């Protein structure tokens, strides 16, 4: 027998604390984003009428480039993370010994737990011009002085977090696939690669999409990676918001950018995830 009173008394503390902390700032951002900006003032002009001007300015081509960079580089990183993360998750579930499995899972979580700044610092030391893997960019045909190196570094930085994130998510997906199905395919004459592609990979599609969406949401909201290794060539929308706050002190524009970015993130996350789940109801369970 459920007691509504008890249930509610457990929910109230969170509602009282979290909802104001979540909606308070968002409403303030929304309000700020509608105020006209006056050069030289930090906050928007509170006395004038509200305006959509700040949003209109974002539609210009100079802003479009930042959004496009964010989404494009985020997509490259996510796809690479899925390509490398899937074999890792598959190895952990299907091939690793119990000890190996523990070590790998611990390392994946450890990578995520290690401070992002520390990891980015380590990457810049490794792939930077004096690092031991400075030649990696040349391997991909990128000249060490070209701005593309900054992009490569940002991708490597995002990959460092997205790979373990995606791999940990995919472990759950692959665990839910009955290994007997793979045995059945092999016994029916399919070689290993075909079994992998047509059975395991095919049945993982909803899980891969979910993991990809989670990884992508992480990538496009990132601030630290472009800030530290983007060398000014690569800036994400998050960096732009931070500039509005720290350098330009144009709060209304920063607020408008924030609202747009939030809507896009929520849309990608909940919208796409919902689509994936309804589209692949059976396998996604």
């Amino acid at each position, binding site marked *: 027998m459920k007691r509504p009173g008890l249930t509610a008394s457990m*929910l109230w*503390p969170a509602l009282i604390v979290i909802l104001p902390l979540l909606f308070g700032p968002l409403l303030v951002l929304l309000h700020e984003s509608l105020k006209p900006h006056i050069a030289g003032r930090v906050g928007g002009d509170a006395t004038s009428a509200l305006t959509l001007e700040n949003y209109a300015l974002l539609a210009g081509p100079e802003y479009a480039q930042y959004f496009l960079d964010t989404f494009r580089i985020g997509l490259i990183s996510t796809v690479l993370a899925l390509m490398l993360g899937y074999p890792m998750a598959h190895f952990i579930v299907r091939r690793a010994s119990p000890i190996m499995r523990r070590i790998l899972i611990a390392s994946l979580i450890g990578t995520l737990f290690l401070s992002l700044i520390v990891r980015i610092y380590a990457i810049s030391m490794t792939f930077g011009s004096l690092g031991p893997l400075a030649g990696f960019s040349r391997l991909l045909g990128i000249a060490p002085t070209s701005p593309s190196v900054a992009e490569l570094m940002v991708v490597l930085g995002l990959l460092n977090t997205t790979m373990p994130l995606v791999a940990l998510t995919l472990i759950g997906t692959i665990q839910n696939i009955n290994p007997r199905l793979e045995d059945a395919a092999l016994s029916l004459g399919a070689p290993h690669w075909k079994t992998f592609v047509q059975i395991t990979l095919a049945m993982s599609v909803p899980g891969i999409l979910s993991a990809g969406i989670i990884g992508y949401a992480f990538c496009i909201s990132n601030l630290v990676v472009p800030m530290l290794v983007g060398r000014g060539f690569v800036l994400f929308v998050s960096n732009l918001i931070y500039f509005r706050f720290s350098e330009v002190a144009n709060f209304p524009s920063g607020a408008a950018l924030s609202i747009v970015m939030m809507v896009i*993130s929520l849309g990608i996350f909940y919208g796409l995830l919902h689509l994936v789940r309804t589209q692949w109801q059976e396998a996604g369970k």
Partner: protein
Amino acid sequence: MTKRLADALFGSVYYLFLASFIGFSAIPVVVAIVLSFDARSFIGPFPPTAFSLQWYEKFLADDYYYQGLATSLLVSAIATVASTVLGALAALGLDRAGFRGRKVLQAILLSPLVVPNVVLGFGILMFASRLGIIDGMPRLIMGHVLITFPYVMRTTAASLVGIRSSYYEAALSLGARPWKALLQITLPLARTGIVAGAIFAFVTSFDDVGISLFLSDAFTFTLPVAILAQMRANLDLTIAALSVIFILATILIIVLLDRLAGLDAAVGRGVYGR
């Protein structure tokens, strides 16, 4: 025969990808550890020609980091305790709730995971100033509770899924009142989820940059904010020494997580996923 050839090719690609994963993740960590012992006074080509502990001495002598560490520990501890209590209770409540908006409420409470931290940081900064809060500490705590809460709620909810409702009902049929049944039966059974959530909350709070950059002020700043400022001011190898400390602390936390909650609490549908 072609089947075997294709399989051999497939196997090589599979292991090449695995090796790339491990390489991209592990090599930078090794490089940072080696560099932290570099005896040169400048950042030179890798590998170092001589080794010393100079960067550790330099970092240990720097008050700036201690100040950041003290703030970080305080903020993370308070945020973790608050989030754990609120998140575990909310997960229990949602698990029992029968009302219609349950799913929506759950999505709203988890949304700080999805909204970019920069947006939340900027928003809380302005929200706090409108409330008249201009000190760094209360602002930081507000922000950190918001971003850590979903972790506890999610891991607790995941562990509640595995608890059969018959345990709770058995307790009731044995004369326990609902709150007592929750406290003595459901809560202990959900322990691993709550502990895992608390650890994730602490780590998330301690590592956060996106929110803390906005909410710190000249006197109250977290350790990552301090490191970031240092890195942008002058890139030397003090950070490498600091990285080694961070790596050791991370290993310690992973061991703690494994002992208290089990690593599997973080896999699949635990913290990541959904």
